[in-house]
Every structure is written in C-alpha cells, then in structure tokens.
C-alpha cells in the first residue's frame, strides 16, 4: 500500500473519529414531556439509556417478563421531534431509517404512533406493558409517570 493511500486512510479515520465525537443534545427527557406506563407496572424510575433502548427496539422485556410496547406522538409533531432529537438524539429521517431496517429484517415492530395525548393515555392505560412519551399537559391519572434518571 502506497504512502498516499495510507495518508488518505489516516485522514478518513481521523474524520470519522472527529465526526463521531461531536456531542449531541443533553441527556434525558425535555421538561415539557413525560414518560408514562400502565399503573400495573411496578417500575417507578427508568434510566435515559434504557428509555433509548426501548424506543430503538433493543430492550423489549420489562424485568417482570412482560413485553414492552412503546408508543409516542407522531414523529413530525413538536412533541415527537422534541423526543427524537432531545432524548434519542436522532432526526426524524434517522429514526425512520433505523426502524425501516429493523422492521423489514424481522427485528421487531416500530413504536406505535398516536396523534393525540388522549389516544396515548388510552393506549397505555389498557396495555400492561405499555410505555409512552407524552406532553406533560396531556397526562391524566389513568397512568403512572416514571422518573427518568441519567
């Protein structure tokens, strides 16, 4: 391998490392959003890493063995974009691209998407393994709000 090729590869490598180290938005969930689960769920806190893994299909079972069923507002709604960019650190396009790969290769199902907070509340209230990200103003007493830790 020639010196020029080695230099080019080293440059590309450095570019990759630089690019990947560019930090994104802060950890956690924006204050205007809440993470809610069914009242049957015994959990009271969840780490932001686990929340990420749930919405990226990497964590699919609660400790109790119940299947996790995630739900969220529409990706392009203000609440949806806030959740994707602030918590999952993905743009709408990145999120869709990620899930298309996973879904169509048989890896799992995309988080359910609802148009309104009341639909999200209905869903979580009737789904024992349900978890949803919802606007704080839309939370009612049929569900339990989780504390998210870093």
């Amino acid at each position, binding site marked *: 391998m020639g010196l020029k090729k080695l230099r080019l590869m080293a440059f590309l490598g450095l570019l990759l490392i630089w690019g*990947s180290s560019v930090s*994104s938005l802060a950890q956690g969930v924006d204050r205007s959003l809440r993470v809610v689960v069914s009242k049957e769920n015994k959990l009271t806190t969840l780490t932001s890493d686990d929340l990420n893994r749930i919405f990226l299909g*990497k*964590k699919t079972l609660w400790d109790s063995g119940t299947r996790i069923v995630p739900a969220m507002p529409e990706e392009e709604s203000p609440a949806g974009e806030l959740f994707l960019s602030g918590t999952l650190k993905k*743009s709408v*396009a990145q999120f869709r691209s990620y899930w*298309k790969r996973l879904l169509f290769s*048989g890896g799992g199902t995309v988080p359910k998407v609802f148009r309104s907070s009341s639909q999200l509340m209905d869903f979580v209230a009737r789904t024992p*393994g349900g978890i949803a990200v919802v606007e704080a103003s839309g939370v009612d007493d049929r569900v339990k709000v989780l504390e998210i830790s870093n």
Partner: protein
Amino acid sequence: MKRLAVFTALALAFLPSAGAQEMADRIVINGYTNFEFSKQLSKDGDGDKKGSFDADQFDLVFNITVSERVRAALDLSWEHGTATEDGRGNQAVEYGFVEYAVSDKLKLRFGKMFTPFGVFNEIHTAKPAFLTVKEAASLNKNDRIVEGGFLFYPRWGAGIAAHGDGVVGGKDVSYDVLVANGEQEEANPFEEDENTSKSLTARVRVNATENLRLGYSFYRDRLSSPSFTTLQSHGFEVELDLARIRVLAEVAFGSLGLAAGGSQRQLGWYIQPSIHLKKGWTPYLRLDKINPNRDLSETGGRDFILGVNVEISKNFQLKVENNAFKGGTRSSLAQYKGRGYHELKAALVLGF
C-alpha cells in the same frame, strides 16, 4: 393497500370490540413495494438496452405477538408481477420464523431467515430501508458488476438462530448467530441438508460512540458440490451517522475451497457517503468494487453510483441514479468500449 385495509376492517368488525382491539394490538401488518425503471445509456454493455419497467416487489410483513415472550415474523414477497399460471415472477417467503425471548440478551429464532451477514443482506428486498435503487452488489450480487465471482454467503438459511442486545463496557452491543443447512447442490436448503456439516453465520455489532457503529460478520460452510469444498467469508462494516452526513462502508473477504485443490480468494468492498438535505433530498455516491479472484490481476470491476433519493412524503421515495460499470482488461466487461457502460436506474418505493 386499500384491499388490505378493507379486509382488516371487515375482519375486525366481526369480532367483539375488546377482541378486535386485542387482535389489532397483537398482529401488526407492514410492507413495502418497489417499482423500477432501468435503461442502459451506453451503446454496448451488460445493462438493460431497451429500457424496462419492473413491478419489482410487493411484500407484506407480519409481526404476531403470540405471548409475552413469543413472536412470529413473516415476510411474504411477490416479485415481478407474479403470475404463476404463466410461470412469471416469483413468490416467496423471504423469512418466516418464531422468536422465543429468554431475555433481551438471548432471543432464540427457528425457521427461515436472511443470513445475518453485513448490512444489506437482511434488507436487500426492502428497498425503503436504503438509499440506493439496489443493494451493494459487491457484497450481495457481485455478478451484476463482473462475472467470475461467488456469493460470500447464501442469502437465506433455515435453522436455529440466537440474537441478543446488551451493554458491554458501557457500549451497546448486539450479536447474531445462525446455524443452518447452508447452500445445497440439489436439495431444498430450507428442507434438507446434503451433508452433516451445518453452516455457521455470526455477526457482532458495537456502537463505539453515539454516531459510530462497527461490525464484524463471519460465514462458514462445508459444501456438498463436486467442484467446491468449503466457503468461508469475513466481513467488516462501519457506519457513521451524523445528523445530516452518513457514511456506510463494508469490506468482505471470501474463500471458496476448490475440489481440485487450492481456493479462489475474493474481495469485495464499497463506501457510500450521503448527505441529507432539506425537504427530504438525499444525494449519494457509492463506489462498489469486486475482485473475484485476488490471485489474478485485471479480473475485477466496479460500479460507481451517483444518485439522489427524494422522500416525496412519509416513507414514499423516488430514487434516480447513474451506475457507471467498469471492469479490468481480463474481466467480463473487457469486450466493451472503455471496458464498461453506464446505466440509468430509477425507482418509486413505498414502505407502509
């Protein structure tokens, strides 16, 4: 899509409402379709000289949650306007398997699956899942570039697999292992093995940082062919995914054991940078190279792709690209002027 919606609505209408809701929660139906056009732009070459429309693909993807730990997944595919009466097109089970989740770190799968090697194989039919019109030929269908090579792995396998996601040293890690019959000379590989040796595929992926994913894949099988003895491949993948810029690259090394002695050593690689602009426009490049025999010179070739992917509306994409194929002086493209040709490819793709 409309018929499917009507069918589902009717099915649900005849169930008690609670039962209908439970069924809707347990059975999720998705799918995708792909309509293509290709036209060779050069006078001579291996492309589509007349220009053709292709009703390439219509797939339905089912995910059925049977219980808390058991899930079934199925992809039914109709290709090229399937008409069995005329012997046209193809219909197939792309994958059909049952998954038992012991935990998130260990999910066991049984059935027919895509071979979990590299980035493209498991999504090679799912055109909405990638930017370009076709998957990277260097690793998945290298005869589209030049002849004389072999597949690094069979695209499907019937057998037992394990998949898991976890955290190691603070990094997200996932793995896949598939033990399958492997490719067969005569028998249906999804029904019968022609020898006692099972094929082994393994893949591990690590999220090195939030934006950088690395992966390694391995495939090995002993073959029952009178001409070939073994197939072994190693693959490495890198994906850098920034907010707008994305770079995807893979390299694979393959070795096909020859019954006459020795082996054919093959190398394939590609690099695909893209930039996501506003209003869903994503221009991309891909340099796809295959060297079907590393012990011979000038037998390889490349496909240099320059294109754009436009998301017209949610999950509905238009893709247009030029493919510049070129081969070495001893490749199957050597007969053409400049040892290559250009081909226009376009597609309308919908995921749902």
